[in-house]
């Protein structure tokens, strides 16, 4: 899974270096490696940020911040805390969510619309770099969750809501939502065969 996720084929058919091979070079200031890293991560990072923020201009701004952060802190990355992909997506999600929360006071999002949309996560995706297999797997594994687990995980991850907000939207007790988020992710982990 990780192999496929991290190696996207170039038009030439050559298999580029994996993210885990590229990162130590980026940490040494290698511009070529950084560009390759960008090529592999630009769609996942931009896609996730845009999924949370929606606004394309803001999404590009935040995605750029993410790539600057990856460049800046590549020197501090250690593999024992997770794969490069997981590290990059953690930073991307965090920055997108930070943007949502800092903008929250000024713009009220329509939470009912958000809830309706969260049931259809992949419809708007214009192009998938990671490949159909990964997407199919995610779809299948999300399907193995209970409806409330799935709804909670997707509201938190794709809409950037806090668990309090999720609890409010789903009219559920806080403790229940916390448990659902954890149980939902654990079930996804087992379904995807993810290890760390």
């Amino acid at each position, binding site marked *: 899974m990780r192999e496929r996720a991290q190696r996207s084929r170039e038009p030439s058919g050559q298999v580029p270096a994996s993210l885990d091979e590229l990162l130590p070079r980026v940490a040494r200031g290698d511009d070529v490696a950084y560009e390759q890293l960008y090529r592999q991560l630009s769609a996942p990072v931009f896609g996730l940020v845009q999924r949370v923020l929606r606004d394309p201009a803001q999404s590009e701004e935040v995605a750029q911040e993410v790539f600057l952060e990856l460049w800046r802190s590549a020197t501090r990355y250690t593999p024992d805390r997770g794969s490069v992909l997981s590290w990059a997506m953690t930073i991307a999600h965090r920055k997108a969510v930070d943007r949502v929360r800092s903008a929250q006071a000024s713009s009220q999002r329509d939470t009912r619309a958000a809830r309706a949309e969260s049931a259809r996560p992949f419809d708007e995706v214009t192009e998938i770099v990671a490949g159909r297999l990964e997407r199919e797997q995610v779809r299948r594994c999300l399907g193995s969750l209970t409806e409330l687990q799935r709804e909670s995980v997707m509201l938190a991850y794709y809409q950037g809501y806090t668990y309090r907000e999720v609890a409010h939207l789903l009219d559920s007790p806080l403790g229940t939502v916390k448990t659902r988020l954890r149980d*939902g992710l654990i079930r996804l982990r087992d379904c995807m065969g993810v290890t760390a």
Partner: protein
Amino acid sequence: MSSGLNNDVHTLTGAYVLDALSELERRAFEDHMAGCPACTQEVAELRETAARLGLAASTVPPPDMWNRVRTATTQIRQLTPIATEPVLIRAKRWPLRVAILAAAASLLGAAAVGVGWITSNQDLHDQLAQSQTEVQRIQNVLSAPDAHVSSGDVGDGNVTAVASKSRDEMVVLVRGLPKLPNGRVYQAWFLKGDKPISAGTLAASSGSMVSSLSAAQGAENLAFTLEPINGSTQPTSTPIAKMPMPA
């Protein structure tokens, strides 16, 4: 600290990985995780899992984004490879008079509205309310013939402590510390050996506080922690900084 957090902090791994915690809960969970290898392992696994959800949303960005990213990275220095320890005040050995001038300059900066120290109306209100008595107390310490200084950097900010035995006061001037999460204050501690004695709180990342020096009971070090809004009787989090007492 919100009620019940400690009872079920363990179940917060999912919400943590999904960035679904408030800032305060996130910090509390990270404190907890530091001493919980099982949580650390679970968080790592759930992060890999969440990354797959992110991957499924992949969308190709505008083609010129790369040029903007590349241009920006040419102007940004990478972090030094070794992360500095969280406790990281390096005492500066300044000539006393220079240090006191610097501290006084900081103080003037704090008093001058609009130079970047005062970040909100609440800060302004606090500063003005304090200013009458506190500025006098601070000047009193700075002008003391036996004033001693200790100073150092914390991240992009700095902390300067000036103490005078004859005036029995210590002034702590803080500038540009990390932004405080909601519901938290900085609390200063005198450290006598391992024993912490509260030296007061500061509800802003820049500002000043004055403490009675006799409360220090001959402490050797000063430490700073993040605490709930009313302060704590004992530190409840790892110090963000530690420095020698001015002497």
